[in-house]
C-alpha cells in the first residue's frame, strides 16, 4: 500500500472583523499561526481578542478563550456584555471559556501545554485566545524553557490549524524570547501629547503578510475596536488617465472663465484667504451649483453647525435647504475639539463613497492640522488624502485660513497649496472706502487659466466676480497705496 498526501495544513486567511485591522495586518491573520498581542493595562487587548473571537463565531467557527491570571470569567463576560459584538447565546456553545491557571500551577509550562492540547482536542476551536500570558512568562525558570514552550505551542496550534492569540503586558524595550518565535507581534499602546492621549497600534512582525509598518490610530467604541490605517502608509495606486476635459461649474460664471471653464473633474483646489473673505461661501456656492445639476455633494467643516451654515448660505441667496432635505447635499459637522485626523479622513472618504458624491468641500483644513497629534506627518497625510479623493473621482475644494495681510509667500498654507492642483488666492485690499475682496487663480496645474486679479462681491443677491478696480494690485496685503480715485470698476 502506498499513498501520497499533499501539504496538510491550510494556511488560510483569517479575517479579524475589526474595522481597519485587516488592512494593517496585510489581509488578516494566517490560519494556524501564533500571535502575541502586547499592551499595557487598559490598552484593549481583551476587547480586541474577544471582538475577533465573536467575529469568528459569526463565521460559524468555535473559539476557546483560555485565561491564566486575568479577570474571572464572570467579570470578563460582564465587561464584554456591554459591547455590541457580544453574543450571549454563543457563550458555552461556540465560545468556550476555560482557565489554564490550575494546570500551569500544578504542572508548569509542560502541564499547561498538555491542557492546551487536550482542550484543543475537546473543543476543536479555530481560534484560541490565551489571556494573561504574563503568568506563563513568570512560570518559566529560564528564557530557554520559555522558548521551548513557545516552540511547542507554535507547533501544536499549527498541527491543530488553530490560530492563536497570546495576550501579554508590554515588555518595553526588553527583548523577550517569544518575540522571535511567534508568527506575529502586535503592540497596543498610547501616545501622549500634552494632556491628550490617543490609542495606537503597531504591528512589529507578521510572517507571511505584507503588513503596514508604523503606528496607526484606533478607538475603542461600544462596538469594539475601530482602527484607522494611516493614509500615507497605504500603497498609492497608479492614477488612471485623467479626464481633463470635463469641467464642474463653480456656480459663478466669471470664476469659471478664470478657471478656463470650471474646475477640472476630480481635481483638488485650495481656496486660501483670511477670515471672512468668502472661502466658505465660495465652497457652498460650488456645492449648490452641483446640487442644482442633481449631483451628490458633501460638505465637511469644523466651525459652523449645519443650521448656521445653511442660514448663512441662504442669506446670500445660496439655496441649500432643499438639497439637504432630499439628500443631494450631506453636511458633516465635526466640532473642532480633540479629533483624530485619520478618523476624520476615513469619515470623509466613506461619506464620499456612500453618497456617490462628485463634489466635496473640506472647509478649514487647519481643523485637520490642529487635530493632528504628530504634526510632522501632516504634509504626507494631506498628500495621501488628496490622492484618495482624486482616486474617488470627487472634485474637492479645501479652504485654508491665513492671517490678515500676511505675505502669501511665507504662509504655512503654501505647503497645503503645493499638494493640490489648483490654488485660488483671496486677499483683502484696503482702500479709503473700505475692504475689497480680491480673487485670483494663482495655479491650475492641469490646464491653462486666466490669472487676472478680480474682485469677489458678496451681496444678498449672491456671489459674483467683477473686474478689479484700477490700482488694486498695489493695495493688496496692505503694503501699497493706490494713486488716484478708488472705486468699483464694473464690467
Amino acid at each position, binding site marked *: *500500500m502506498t*499513498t*501520497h*498526501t499533499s501539504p*496538510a*495544513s491550510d494556511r488560510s486567511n483569517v479575517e479579524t472583523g475589526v474595522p481597519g485591522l485587516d488592512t494593517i495586518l496585510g489581509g488578516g491573520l494566517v490560519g494556524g499561526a501564533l500571535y502575541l498581542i502586547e499592551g499595557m493595562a487598559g490598552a484593549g487587548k481583551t476587547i480586541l481578542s474577544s471582538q475577533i473571537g465573536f467575529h469568528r463565531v459569526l463565521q460559524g467557527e468555535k473559539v476557546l478563550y483560555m485565561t491564566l491570571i486575568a479577570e474571572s470569567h464572570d467579570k470578563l463576560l460582564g465587561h464584554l456584555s456591554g459591547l455590541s459584538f457580544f453574543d450571549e447565546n454563543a457563550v458555552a456553545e461556540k465560545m468556550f471559556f476555560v482557565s489554564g491557571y490550575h494546570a500551569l500551577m500544578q504542572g508548569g509550562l509542560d502541564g499547561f501545554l498538555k491542557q492546551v492540547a*487536550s482542550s484543543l482536542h475537546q473543543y476543536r476551536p479555530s481560534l484560541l485566545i490565551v489571556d494573561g500570558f504574563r503568568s506563563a512568562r513568570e512560570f518559566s525558570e529560564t528564557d530557554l524553557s520559555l522558548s521551548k514552550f513557545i516552540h511547542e505551542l507554535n507547533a501544536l496550534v499549527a498541527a491543530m490549524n488553530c490560530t492563536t492569540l497570546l495576550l501579554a503586558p508590554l515588555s518595553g524595550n526588553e527583548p523577550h524570547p517569544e518575540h522571535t518565535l511567534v508568527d506575529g507581534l502586535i503592540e497596543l499602546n498610547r501616545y501622549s501629547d500634552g494632556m491628550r492621549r490617543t490609542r495606537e497600534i503597531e504591528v512589529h512582525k507578521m510572517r507571511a503578510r505584507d503588513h503596514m509598518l508604523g503606528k496607526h490610530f484606533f478607538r475603542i467604541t461600544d462596538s469594539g475596536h475601530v482602527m484607522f490605517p494611516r493614509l500615507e502608509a497605504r500603497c498609492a495606486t497608479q492614477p488612471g488617465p485623467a479626464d481633463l476635459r470635463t469641467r464642474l461649474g463653480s456656480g459663478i460664471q466669471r470664476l469659471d472663465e478664470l478657471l478656463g471653464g470650471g474646475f477640472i473633474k476630480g481635481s483638488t483646489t485650495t481656496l486660501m484667504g483670511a477670515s471672512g473673505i468668502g472661502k466658505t461661501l465660495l465652497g457652498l456656492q460650488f456645492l449648490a451649483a452641483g446640487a442644482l445639476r442633481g449631483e451628490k455633494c458633501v460638505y465637511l467643516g469644523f466651525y459652523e453647525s449645519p443650521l448656521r451654515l445653511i442660514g448663512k448660505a441662504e442669506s446670500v441667496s445660496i439655496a441649500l435647504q432643499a438639497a439637504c432635505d432630499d439628500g443631494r447635499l450631506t453636511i458633516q459637522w465635526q466640532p473642532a475639539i480633540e479629533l483624530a485626523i485619520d478618523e476624520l479622513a476615513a469619515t470623509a472618504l466613506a461619506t464620499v463613497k456612500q453618497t456617490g458624491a462628485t463634489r466635496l468641500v473640506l472647509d478649514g483644513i487647519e481643523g485637520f492640522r490642529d487635530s493632528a497629534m504628530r504634526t510632522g506627518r501632516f504634509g504626507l497625510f494631506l498628500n495621501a488624502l488628496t490622492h484618495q479623493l482624486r482616486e474617488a473621482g470627487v472634485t474637492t475644494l479645501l479652504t485654508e485660513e491665513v492671517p490678515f495681510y500676511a505675505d502669501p509667500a511665507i504662509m504655512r498654507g503654501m505647503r497645503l497649496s503645493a499638494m493640490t492642483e489648483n490654488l485660488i488666492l483671496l486677499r483683502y485690499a484696503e482702500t479709503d472706502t473700505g475692504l475689497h475682496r480680491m480673487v485670483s487663480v494663482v495655479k491650475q496645474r492641469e490646464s491653462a487659466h486666466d490669472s487676472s486679479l478680480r474682485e469677489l462681491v458678496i451681496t444678498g443677491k449672491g456671489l459674483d466676480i467683477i473686474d478689479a478696480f484700477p490700482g488694486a494690485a498695489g493695495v493688496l496685503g496692505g503694503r501699497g497705496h493706490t494713486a488716484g480715485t478708488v472705486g468699483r470698476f464694473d464690467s
Partner: protein
Amino acid sequence: MKTIMVVDDEFDLLTVWSLLLEQVGYAVVTAPNGAFALELIRKARPDLILSDCMMPVMSGPELCAALFADPDLRSIPIILCSAAVDIPRQPNPVIAYCRKPLSIDTLLPIIQKMLP
C-alpha cells in the same frame, strides 16, 4: 492500545504529536533520528512509524531501508513526511507519504486507514 513511533529531529514536533496522538487514544514513543528509532523498534515493535525525512545520523529513507532489509520489521506501516515536494519513494510494502507541515485533520485519517 496501538503504539505509534514518532521520529523527528525537531523536539517540538515530538512533543506535539505525542500530546495529540495520545489524545485520540494511541500510545506514543519518540526518537530524534532514524538510528535511535531503529534501536527502539528492535526492542519493542511499534504498530506504525511516523517519520520525518531529513534528520541527522540516520535519515527517514535510511530508516525505511533498514526496516525493509529486516524481514521481521519490513511490514511495519510507515508514514514518511517531508517539507520537500518530492519525497523519495521507498520499497516498504505499507507506506504513505505526507508533505509537511502536517495537521491532525489530514494525518488522523491516514493513521486510521493504516491501523484499522
